[in-house]
């Protein structure tokens, strides 16, 4: 067993690639995730160009053939979900925030943490290697329904399919390790005095997301093994001619796939909760109720999966059960969103960039939420299933989650991560330049969806009803909006790197926030806290009447503020 010397000056390799420090691992996840986001965004650019300008030469790519189109959408989906949303929302923010916000020096198991990132990096490399093999990357949609995904002569990308599957499996292992570590750290390593209901919401939600992931990914890991054998060892788990059943994979996939939505949603909700509390200078309205709704969502997310399969050939009677549970899950989610909005009441709202992102998240996510009702009620899903309505609904939830909330989190914690402030003006330009085009991309897609555009189609030329010029104009609008949105991301990239050097020095607590991570210098030193903190109160004590300041940090003893505090 190697001895890890903590305070010796590490070499570059040890510091950046072999570090067990949670902050460095968070950065590794963050930058890997952002690099993958660029790749995923590039794919979106290519296939949107194909849809906007069918069969034209796409600058920076070339001709989009039907096969390549499938590979592009498959990789866009897989990368954005598994290699962008998960690593950034859970792993990067989780790693950075959990030890800082619960008041300890590192994860409970730093080396498991390091291993988690290394396996994740390996999964990235395996995925990217599929671009180099014969046949190219997998093109059977991110849901990988067999027998298409299982048989090389059906999907025509046998090597790519196997590499994709292995990459996903490795990624799962990485997040199982990471998630277990998050859970244990939060359960065991909290600062003295930090009780269950003193934990900031973002930590709660990241941990609950990890637990949901742990409980839901298992069957799919088993399924991945079976599918891998189907691909490489000619077994017939999903092959109906040999006693297998293709529906089994769909069930295993969606048993994971639906909770996965909440796995990424919850951290985003947590980030937004933190930001809203700080910038509205308000305690979260009904902190405990938010938690209860989260638990309810977490549990219910396990009983709704087959609403992805209403018309997939499941027994139609089952659809009724899943339709009811699906609408049931709207109950706690609605409650949660209402509570967030209620938090604004009586506040003193400062519209800094992070707050804009957080409010943008709520505003946009609500659209995603209500359009889910159309799909969750089995009757309308018959028509809307697998149309662009689904795409638009899905992106109205996922873009707020993986883009808007992530930008919110990044702009909010950037000072803590790098010690400098981001440029506010550029931040606001970037916000409006992202959110407005985002709506212009997806609102037309709702309409094309209701007009019957099916998804994953590289050109509608052969479908008379779908190749109406009116629909093509909508597709073109969406493509142009995407170009605008993508180009505005350059402002963020510029701002990010420019501010690393030129930003205003942040100080320990630029946003006057009450949680523990703001009590340490920015960026936090190795070991985080010079003196390990003790916690005396909940995380959102803002707007206290009569205090010297309008907030009380979690680690300040009660007597310092007299007895006005509860």
């Amino acid at each position, binding site marked *: 067993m190697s001895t890890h010397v903590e305070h010796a000056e590490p070499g570059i390799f040890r510091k950046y690639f072999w570090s067990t420090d949670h902050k460095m691992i968070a950065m590794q996840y963050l930058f890997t995730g952002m690099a993958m986001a660029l790749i995923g965004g590039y794919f979106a650019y290519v296939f949107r160009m194909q849809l906007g300008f069918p069969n034209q030469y796409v600058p920076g790519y070339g001709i989009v053939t039907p096969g390549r189109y499938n590979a592009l959408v498959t990789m866009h989906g897989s990368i954005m979900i598994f290699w962008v949303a998960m690593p950034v929302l859970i792993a990067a923010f989780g790693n950075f925030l959990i030890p800082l916000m619960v008041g300890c020096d590192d994860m409970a198991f730093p080396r498991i943490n390091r291993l988690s990132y290394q396996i994740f990096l390996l999964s990235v490399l395996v995925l990217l290697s599929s671009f180099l093999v014969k046949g190219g990357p997998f093109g059977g949609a991110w849901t990988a*329904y067999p027998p298409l995904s299982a048989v090389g002569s059906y999907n025509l990308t046998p090597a790519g399919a196997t590499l994709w599957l292995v990459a996903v499996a490795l990624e799962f292992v990485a997040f199982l390790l990471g998630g277990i570590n998050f859970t244990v750290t939060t359960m065991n390593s909290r600062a003295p005095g930090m009780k269950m209901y003193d934990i900031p919401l973002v930590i709660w939600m990241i941990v609950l997301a990890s637990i949901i992931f742990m409980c839901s990914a298992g069957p799919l890991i088993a399924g991945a093994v079976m599918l891998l054998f189907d691909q490489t060892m000619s077994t017939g788990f999903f092959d109906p001619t040999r006693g297998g059943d293709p529906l089994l994979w769909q069930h295993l996939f969606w048993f994971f796939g639906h909770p996965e939505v909440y796995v990424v949603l919850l951290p985003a909700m947590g980030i937004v909760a933190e930001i809203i509390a700080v910038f509205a200078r308000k305690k979260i309205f009904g902190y405990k109720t938010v938690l209860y709704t989260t638990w309810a969502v977490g549990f219910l997310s396990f009983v709704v999966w087959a609403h992805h399969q209403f018309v997939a050939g499941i027994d139609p009677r089952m659809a009724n059960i899943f339709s009811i549970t699906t609408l049931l899950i709207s109950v706690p989610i609605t409650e949660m969103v209402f509570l967030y909005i209620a938090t604004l009441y009586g506040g003193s709202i400062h519209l800094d960039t992070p707050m804009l992102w957080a409010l943008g998240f709520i505003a946009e996510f609500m659209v995603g939420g209500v359009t889910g009702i159309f799909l969750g009620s089995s009757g309308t899903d018959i028509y809307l299933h697998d149309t662009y309505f689904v795409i638009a609904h899905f992106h109205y939830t996922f873009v707020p989650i993986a883009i808007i909330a992530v930008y919110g989190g990044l702009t909010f914690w950037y000072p803590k991560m790098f010690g400098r402030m981001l440029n506010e003006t550029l931040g606001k330009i970037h916000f409006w330049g992202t959110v407005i085009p985002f709506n212009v991309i997806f609102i037309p897609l709702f309409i094309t969806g209701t007009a019957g555009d099916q998804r994953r189609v590289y050109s509608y030329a052969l479908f008379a009803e779908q190749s109406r010029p009116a629909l093509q104009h909508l597709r073109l609008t969406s493509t142009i909006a995407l170009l605008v949105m993508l180009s505005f991301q350059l402002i963020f990239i510029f701002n990010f790197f420019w501010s690393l050097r030129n930003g205003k020095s942040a100080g320990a607590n630029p946003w006057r926030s009450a949680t523990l991570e703001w009590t340490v210098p920015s960026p936090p030193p190795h070991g985080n806290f010079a003196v390990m903190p003790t916690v005396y109160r909940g995380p959102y004590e803002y707007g206290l009447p009569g205090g010297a300041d309008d907030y009380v940090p979690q680690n300040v003893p009660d007597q310092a503020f007299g007895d006005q505090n509860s």
Partner: protein
Amino acid sequence: MLERYLTAASTYAHWIDYQFLLIAVLVGFWLIVAEGMMFWLIFKFRARDGRATQYITGEETHLKRWITIPHILVILCDIVIIVPAILVWYNIKQVMPPADETVRVIGQQWAWSFQQAGPDGVMDTADDIRTVGELHVKVNTTYHFELMSRDVVHSFAVPSFRLKQDALPGRTISGWFRPNRVGSYDIQCTQMCGIGHGLMAGRIIVETPQDHAAWLLHNSTPAVAGQQALPSPSTVGMDGLATMAEVRR
């Protein structure tokens, strides 16, 4: 509401359209209320000098009811949505009205093929009509379909009928539709089925009984039995380009 975007050509298309409208009205209302409330609060409680923040925990009864009452109303709306949704589902997918005709729909990479009984009205006999890429049906006739797949998962979707059902290899899945408007409509495959997925188009042609009988007769003379049905001109020129190729010859 949906008919503004796409023709409704089957009897149950309107059920789905009304359900869509119902949901749109209810959730649209709540969306507007919630967004309006949010933006109003942002405006009302924007930071202003000299105004202190209120300390509210969310446990206060008089404030909590501002959450609870709308929430109960939302749950009521959920029920109002789910009951008809299930009824629509039940009537389309769970019960099947007695069939006038039966067709067999077979998906494969990347074409739809159809088998229907010839003039003798019995399936799996010598005069069966087999077509590829287009299905001819009679208007105002209840059809049962038997859906299957030769290779991978496909999805038989006729947007104008509001019909969609996945075809699974190894299974026969039945369903029904009753076209009520003469015309020719798209068949899509809406489940990723390989590189030709986006090209897996078909047409469903709803004909008057007379036209249908003529078509039936033309394609089921013993001489052509067992062979393919002739593509009608409307589908050969499906993409405009194919016709061009023909003209050039």
